[in-house]
């Protein structure tokens, strides 16, 4: 119990800072921190899949798109409450995630990466085909979009709830089964872990998380769901966030989310390469450097510091 104290204390500090921030930040900065909260949910979801179960996905932007369009379409057609649309996005993406997880059962490693990459490129093209229902290139506008503060509150409230949920799932029987699958599928099966159940379940849960993130992502963009916003780049951002956070640990997720949520925006104001054009250069270089210098991401760095402190 004594060892848990610093961990709990850091959680309380982060929570307190997040409560105070809206009172001191400008409206624009509130939207930036809300963005971090949205990526927190997405990266958390992807970490459950890639970090704990060892299945690579470069396609979680596709689930974010599904969640985002669920919110926008429901709001446009039925003026549904946004909290209800988020729950719907969670449920729909959970089911779609299970469906994608079924073929993923037979695929592993690079094959799964390949399939999910193709999924990420394909899904944003669907609104162009069904343009009447899904708005085509113009996108779908939600009815009466919420303020930045509303999105901020919703994003961090969801982050807290989903973090606790993830912790509850991962600490028990299910989490052990996930890790067993990651470390060796054959050994897991030999110890009685039902591979199909746990692999698809991991896909469903992580897709549901991405769905909620997508829903908030649309609300943060003034309620507009547009195909260009959900391109491959979004999926890449999520994977990079999970890697920077550290796969297979929940401690670094805030750092991973801040990295992908803030870096592209912040680097636009870097003097030398300035402008929006240079931002992917900074992002790309940063990703490669982090992978070379911090193999286990931010969580690995924390663990190393803790070990040093104890020694």
């Amino acid at each position, binding site marked *: 119990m004594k060892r848990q104290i610093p961990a709990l204390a850091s959680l309380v500090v982060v929570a307190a800072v997040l409560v105070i921030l809206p009172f001191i930040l400008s409206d624009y900065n509130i939207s930036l921190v809300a963005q971090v909260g949205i990526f927190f949910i997405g990266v958390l979801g992807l970490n459950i899949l890639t970090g704990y179960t060892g299945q690579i996905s470069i396609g979680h932007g596709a689930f974010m798109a599904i969640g985002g369009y669920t919110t926008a379409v429901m709001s446009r057609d039925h003026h549904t409450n946004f909290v209800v649309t988020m729950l719907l996005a969670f449920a729909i993406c959970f089911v779609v995630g299970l469906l994608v997880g079924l073929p993923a059962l037979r695929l592993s490693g690079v*094959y799964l990466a*390949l399939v999910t990459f193709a999924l990420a490129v394909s899904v944003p093209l669907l609104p162009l085909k069904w343009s009447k229902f899904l708005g085509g290139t113009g996108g779908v506008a939600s009815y009466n979009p919420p303020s930045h503060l509303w999105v901020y509150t919703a994003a961090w409230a969801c982050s807290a709830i989903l973090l606790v949920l993830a912790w509850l799932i991962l600490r028990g029987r299910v989490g052990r089964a996930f890790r067993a699958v990651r470390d060796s599928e*054959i050994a897991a099966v030999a110890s009685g872990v039902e591979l199909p159940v746990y692999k698809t379940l991991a896909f469903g849960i992580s897709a549901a998380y991405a769905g909620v993130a997508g829903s908030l992502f649309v609300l943060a963009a003034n309620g507009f769901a547009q195909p260009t916003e959900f391109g491959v780049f979004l999926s890449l951002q999520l994977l990079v966030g999970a890697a920077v956070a550290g796969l297979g640990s929940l401690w670094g997720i805030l750092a991973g989310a801040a990295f992908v949520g803030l870096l592209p925006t912040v680097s636009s104001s870097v003097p030398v390469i300035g402008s929006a054009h240079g931002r992917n250069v900074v992002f790309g270089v940063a990703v490669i450097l982090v992978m070379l210098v911090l193999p286990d991401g931010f969580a690995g760095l924390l663990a190393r510091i803790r070990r040093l402190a104890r020694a």
Partner: protein
Amino acid sequence: MVSAATSRLEGLRGGAIDAGTATVVLFLLGAAIFLLVGCLQSTAFAQFTIQGLAVGSVYGSLALALVLIYRATHVINFAQGELALLTTYIAWELMQHGLSYWEAFAATLAIAFALGTALQVTVIRPVQHRSVIAVVIVTVGLFILIDGIVDWIWGSTFKFMDSPFGTASFDVGGVQIQHLYVGMLVVVFVSVLLVWALFRFTKLGLGMRAAALRPSAAALVGVRVESMLAIGWGLAAVLGAVAGLMAEPSQLFLTPSLMQPILVYAFAAAVLGGLESPAGALIGGLLIGVTLTLIAGYQPHIGSFRITPELQTPLAFAVILLILLVKPSGLFGRREVRRV
């Protein structure tokens, strides 16, 4: 590739044809007959087929680049398409400085080789022995970086390159065959043949094959495995550059998003051929190219549901998924045997 073919031939001589090989041969034969009959029946069909073969050769070339790297290190280079894009922009820039098309072409291939080799040495080698996920993330980082560089230097406005083959066309029995398509096919096949010859007939190629097949055994007999992998990345970048340069005239202009759908088609081609098989990648590319072009040309429909061009990439996704579920080893790959 060659040894696989000879062993298959020996199998045929011995009278032992396994069911899998027979199905593949029948499938390819059926496809060829379908295309031949179609071409004889309708000139439009023939034109679509030739266009499909030409763009298919581009997919095949990029797929071959992916397969070269996959064979050596069992990793997919997600930045392969963006690398091809970068080299195509370099070719455009060289032409702005007064080089003729073919001078720029040759210079670009040399630059691509240097670039591919340098990337392997600087960013891939340090993470290579860590895990598949680590290498995939580094290639994803490269994807973002190269995308950023292209956008930063050249911006997102369309760039135009004159087609090296002009806009004229041959007339074969009423079928108009554009010089461009013939040129694309010739260029891709010549470059693939050269790469194949390098692997087959030179000592360097032998070393590269050895390094890919049995790295530790190759190292024991004095092959510099790490250098071979770097050269492999260079060659893959060269094939990618050929794909990019040939893709540009068929798409009419150069934009930063030129290679994204093409990369997905190349994935589909590589998976269809079997990720291990170079010949499979090329044939897969041609099959995907012809299929997608025919579908885009005729827009078949099921009931009121019409397959329009927006659905081309989702269709390629469906193809990838279907093959991996039905026959994960593809048309020419061998089934993977995993050791516990």
